[in-house]
């Protein structure tokens, strides 16, 4: 169609997807350029976080708290004295959801139904678990492991089929399914899964001997291991397998995907199922590792927390690990630090908001001066940059 050498014109549909993650498949750049690319990536990824911490520090000063003391307290309560273990357990479900989102985002598909998928899986674990306690524990875990993955996957099926067969916008369908899932989970908690022995609406509790065991010598449950393996598995999928390349082709150029003979419908459905399965697994790790039961109207909305970090990591499943770790420490240590220093706990939300704000600022300057790769893949960028102008249908002119 055109001649390709002209890069990113603002309104041009240029493939600006994150590069395929396997570096050795990428252009072998001369060292200086590689260093520059690395520098840009670092600026893009780390600077918003640092700026947010600095701006947050200023805010703390205004609130009359010594920011250094506050951040030191975050460190003490989030990492030191064994508190890293709680941070790790907090990070586990986040990591699994991040992986589930990264895989499908790579195909330029915006599956945002994570809350419904997570909650349904969580509720079914607590609903079904107490009925099958007679099973050997390993079988018990295996059954619930598969169940959560299956529930998460099934809950993506409607958006997946609609997307594959009717090209329905998945942002809308996954969000709708998510609302339905959240409500259904609530109904289940208050109805069939209600613990008959208590008065408040909550499910039965998984017996403590069937909760996931800890890694010897720590409080950390083995679910964290599952969560840490996931990004590596995703990385392998993306860089080494035909499936990963197909995802990349679909994300970068869907028309090329059909042209080169990729079964696009099947690929779309599979990527939804896999994404949903990872989200479902986060409930397995979280419920059997930490909570043991679910209350009605409980929704940790992990996915919302994870999304900024998924983009900060540029959809790279390994790069997302440090970001999630950072957040888990901040969140875990921050709660106590806030209590100790008399800062409202909402301050943590302010920090996350500040990170997002600075991401936006850097995105803006990055566009102006061509600073490395955008956080947003092109599909999403187009959604955001579409002008909102009233449209009048004009007269038609037939293509000659």
């Amino acid at each position, binding site marked *: *169609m*055109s*001649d*390709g*050498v*002209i*890069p*990113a*014109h*603002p*309104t*041009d549909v*240029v*493939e600006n*997807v994150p*590069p*395929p993650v396997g570096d*050795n*498949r*990428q*252009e*072998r*750049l*001369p060292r200086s*350029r590689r260093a520059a690319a690395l520098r840009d990536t670092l600026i893009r990824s780390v600077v918003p976080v640092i700026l947010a911490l600095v701006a947050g520090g200023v805010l703390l000063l205004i609130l009359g708290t010594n920011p250094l003391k506050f951040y030191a307290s975050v460190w003490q309560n989030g990492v030191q004295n064994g508190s890293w273990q709680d941070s790790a357990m907090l990070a586990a479900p986040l990591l699994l959801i991040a992986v589930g989102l990264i895989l499908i985002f790579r195909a330029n598909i915006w599956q945002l139904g994570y809350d419904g998928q997570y909650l349904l899986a969580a509720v079914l674990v607590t609903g079904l678990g107490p009925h099958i306690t007679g099973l050997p524990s390993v079988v018990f875990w295996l059954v619930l492991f598969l169940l959560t993955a299956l529930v998460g996957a099934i809950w993506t099926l409607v958006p997946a089929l609609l997307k594959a067969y009717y090209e329905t916008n998945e942002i809308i369908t996954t969000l709708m399914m998510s609302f339905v899932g959240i409500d259904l989970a609530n109904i289940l908690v208050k109805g069939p899964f209600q613990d008959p022995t208590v008065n408040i609406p909550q499910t039965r509790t998984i017996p403590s001997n069937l909760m996931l065991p800890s890694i010897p010598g720590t409080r950390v449950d083995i679910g964290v291991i599952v969560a840490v393996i996931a990004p590596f598995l995703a990385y392998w999928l993306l860089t*080494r*397998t*035909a*499936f990963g*390349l*197909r995802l*990349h*082709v679909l994300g*970068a*150029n869907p*028309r*090329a995907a*059909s*042209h*080169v*003979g*990729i*079964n696009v419908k099947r690929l779309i459905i599979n990527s939804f199922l896999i994404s949903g399965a990872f989200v479902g697994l986060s409930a397995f790790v979280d419920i059997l590792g930490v909570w043991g039961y679910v209350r009605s109207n409980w929704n940790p909305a992990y996915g919302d927390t994870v999304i900024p970090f998924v983009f900060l990591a540029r959809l790279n499943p390994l790069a997302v690990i440090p970001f999630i770790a950072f957040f888990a420490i901040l969140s875990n240590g921050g709660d106590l630090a806030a209590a100790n220093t008399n800062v409202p706990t909402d301050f943590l939300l302010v920090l996350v908001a500040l990170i997002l704000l600075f991401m936006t600022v850097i995105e803006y300057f990055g566009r*102006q001066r061509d600073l490395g790769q955008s956080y947003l893949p092109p599909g999403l960028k187009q959604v955001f940059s*579409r*002008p909102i*102008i009233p*449209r*009048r*249908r*004009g*007269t*038609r*002119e*037939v*293509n*000659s």
Partner: protein
Amino acid sequence: MNEAGQARSAAASTTPAVELVSISKAFPGVQANDNVSVSLYSGEIHCLLGENGAGKSTLMGILAGMQQPDSGHIRVAGQEVVITSPRTALDYGIGTVYQHSTLVGALTVVENLILGESRALRLNVSRATERLSEFSAMLGVEIDPNALTSDLALGRQQQVEIIKALWRGSRVLILDEPTSMLTPQAVTELQVVLNRLREAGLAVVFITHKLHEAVALSDRISVLRQGRVIGTIDREQVRESSPDELESAIVHLMFGDTLEDASAPELHIAIEEREPGSAAPADTVVDSDGAAVALELNDARVRGDGSQPGLDGVSLQLRFGEVLGIAGVDGNGQRALAEAISGQRRLTHGQISFLGAPVASLSVWQREKLGLRYVTDDRLGEGIVRSLPVSVNLVLKRIGHAPYWRRGQVKRDAIDRNARELVEQFDIRTPSIDTRAGTLSGGNIQKLLLARELTGEAKVVVFHKPTYGLDLKTTRTVRNMIKGLRDGKAALLISTDLDELLECADRIAVLSRGKVVGIVENGPGAAEQIGRLMIGDVSLGLAAA
């Protein structure tokens, strides 16, 4: 006219509107521009010529603010300037029309134009409509301000693009290969528009691979080769030489020798060595003349997209050892035909047989495996994935299959080995096999596609506009490749370029509104016959309307 003529000669004698001075630009592995100096004058059309990858688009990209030069500088009206972005370029009065559309299809013409205004907060539609009609009058075109741009024909869209580039009062207009996708009629219209712009005193840069366009339009010609300006033909020379003289002067500059000496038939020999022409299998279907039928369409019907017709009951036979041409004005079902054969589109009726067996229900990959190949015309839109390396693009149609993938896992050695072979065999000019395919020049992207489709057990190849945007030499190479398929294979050549069909095809079918309206044996008088078939269609169309 008189006034304009004076303005023209006056402008030509003054300082150039834009001077590019000693511009150099390197990309990993290539020096795209090497100390290039070019001056653009008001009231002149300056033609940039050069083979694929010579650095034309790069040079203009630098002027348009898409890229920064490594060294050298730019003067606008004698003032040295630094152009950091397309927006600054516009601020300096430099507008660009890219080869692909930058219009938002869902918006009307006026809305698109307002969108181009730098800091429009409020929409002043009536003012914009007025301004549009001024521009239309100046260019001598008619544009409905309230038409959705996606409903406009390509040529009309391009006129909107030109107005958009001029919207903020640009005095310099860059057009990168504006004619390669236009119908002959639209090309003529564009030439009229450009002449008007010249009269209005603009400096126009015009990049093309078609010599006759360059000869017909330009006041000044610069030829690039391997990143350097190797020759400029200035105003006086252009005016004094006859079209033929000019053409041969350009060819001489571009290729050193005359084109005949420079032709490179080695490529097609190389293909044959790699896969010796397999004679048609013994048990194949034979047509009435006793020739083996490679591909047969029987009353094939396909849905079209949008206002474009699909196929409306097409029956064709392609025999082994022949090149069957498909002529017709663009947008008469060419793409539907190609995609129906390749498997990208399902038939709603009828049958396609390949080597005597029905294939209508087979997937793209299954047909590919049988040896049915498709070289798409939409090279960037669907042919390649720009962000992936050349090596991976060369196996894109075999993802997941041996020897490049085994048990779902990639075998990088096999992919790289294949890429190295093909890059050498098809003379793909790329810094390395790991270079992102999107950075190759147009001609080399086409060679990449040819390499991908012609290797392995290719038996029947569908070519869709295989030479648009290619330089003379590469065009020649590609046509030789197509003709080379006569040796035991078969080719379907869909083209809007009648000369190309007359040069390569044995028989030529004329496609009109999704129907084959006639098939002509190539030979003396074929051109007139085809012309008549195409005109017959137009009058039929009028009668129906």
